[in-house]
């Protein structure tokens, strides 16, 4: 199994020395994200996020299946991750490496366990039919910050996705195609976003959104997932060098600001996209939320 190319000693020294002098290699301030660029596809539920050189595409899709027998009133929601070998030579198809396991676990905890998507709203007939929503995360280019970028892409894609409208009459379910009826957005309860903090020089330097090079040199990382209401959905510090408890608290408060700014950006992009789709101004009339 090939490994990620390690930084040479010189590069390592240079990066650390620069950080000691309060300079990042790409000239960013310590507490800013790289440029986030979010694009939506032609179809509903496709989001393409570029965070610096990192690029992630998420595709959300759904179909109708039977719910799990122990969860009759819930729909099904699954997140799968795939690291494409074109992103990095260290990624192999079909053999999840450690970072893939961590990414999928973090997203699982951040989005699924915090019940960002209301799975009960995916139920059609209790115990018999429900929607199974599936989000596929594809990492196309890897330059650090995978968790943050994947989370942005996933939330944007879920918010962008529309499921087909259904009507239930007794035991009969009619699923309307996109042509017949305007599809329905998913019921999102809140919008968690991840912010990764990287620690250097035994906690003296804290970076937001580290690049791959910085990730390879860092001493420890803290991944904080919050929504814009100030609720923490997940914190993960798996190990690494010891840090002050107080610094964890400052992480959460600065994460809140980042999350609010990111969500505002996603919202803007979603509005932009909605406007583009609403060609004749008919959307309001067609909306499935109107009374029939």
């Amino acid at each position, binding site marked *: *199994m090939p*490994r990620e190319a*390690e930084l040479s000693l010189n590069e390592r020294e240079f990066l650390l020395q620069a950080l000691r002098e309060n300079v990042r290699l790409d000239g960013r301030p310590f507490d800013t994200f790289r440029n986030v660029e979010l694009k939506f596809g032609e179809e509903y539920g496709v989001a393409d996020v570029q965070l610096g050189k990192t690029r992630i595409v998420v595709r959300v899709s759904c179909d109708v299946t039977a719910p799990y027998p122990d969860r009759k009133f819930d729909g099904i929601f699954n997140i799968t991750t795939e690291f494409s070998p074109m992103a990095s030579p260290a990624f192999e198809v079909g053999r*999840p*490496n*450690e970072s893939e*396991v*961590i990414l*999928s*676990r973090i997203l*699982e*905890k951040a989005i699924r*366990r*915090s*019940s960002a998507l209301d799975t009960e709203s995916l139920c059609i007939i209790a115990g018999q039919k429900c929607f199974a929503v599936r989000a596929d995360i594809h990492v196309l280019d890897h330059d650090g910050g995978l968790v943050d970028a994947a989370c942005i892409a996933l939330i944007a894609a879920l918010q962008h996705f529309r499921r087909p409208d259904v009507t239930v009459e007794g035991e009969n379910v009619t699923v309307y195609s996109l042509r017949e009826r305007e599809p329905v957005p998913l019921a999102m309860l809140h919008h968690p976003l991840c912010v990764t903090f990287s620690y250097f020089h035994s906690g003296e330097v804290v970076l937001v959104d580290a690049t791959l090079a910085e990730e390879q040199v860092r001493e*420890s990382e*803290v991944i904080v997932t*919050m929504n814009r209401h*100030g*609720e*923490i*959905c*997940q*914190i*993960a*510090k*798996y*190990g*690494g*060098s*010891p*840090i*002050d*408890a107080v610094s*964890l*608290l400052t992480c*959460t*408060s600065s994460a*809140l600001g980042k999350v609010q700014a990111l969500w505002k950006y996603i919202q803007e992009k979603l509005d932009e996209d909605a406007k583009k789709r609403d060609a004749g101004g008919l959307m309001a009339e067609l909306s499935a939320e109107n009374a029939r």
Partner: protein
Amino acid sequence: MPLDTSTYSLALLRLDGRRWNELRRIHAQISTQAAADGSSYLEMGNTKVICTVAGPAEGRRGAVGGGSQSEMRIEVEINIAGFAGVERKKRSRADRRNAELSHTVQSALESTLLTHLYPHSTLTLTLHILAQDGALLAACINAATLALVDAGVPMYDYLVACSAGSTSASAAAPPSSSAIPGLGGIGGNRSVGADADDPLLDLNGLEEQELPYLTVGTQGDSDKVVVCVMETRCHASRLEEMLAVGIDGCKRVREILDGVVRAHGKKMIENE
């Protein structure tokens, strides 16, 4: 399974009769397995873990993957016994939850052990979880620490972990004084239920299902956090008290573990 934790605010006693800052019983033994280089058995309440250490030894030939060869590699294997939980479940080896757990123990140990003293070698830890009743990660970390002490692997300090939670106002609806007028009167100056979100130390399995909680791991009795894992949603304002209670718990766990190690050492000297 909704569980009624709202009684807490009435008596300030938890489901198992503990106060907010009480640990469960911790019972630990070391050198339990003669064949292993180091081993330990740890009970935190009803959570029971056996840990064995093999190595540091030459790594498997053709062993793949990470880490430079100038430092010791740490491999952690976690086995959750089928009978550990309430219902018998078959777990696949590629369980991601399990993988995350072992990744946490492994990377926490990497910063605690003096890995640079053993280049080109591998340390293998095997954790068997015999019974599960909350604080699984904390129990794994504590058991690993004891087994490593037994194996004589040099480390900076004990790596100890403990879980802490918060009685959330949303889960345990604060009983307004008008709802229970009698109690409000008896309570006198202590307003019953006003402080609905007390921090709790060392949650058991039932409490973990109900309340937001986190697991903190510290190095020795310093205030420095090595591990902090929170998986449940809770408001950011609760984090501070949960962390404070957790770190305080870690210090007490350290004393207990230290006592176990010293007692074992004493016994060894007497036997010789």
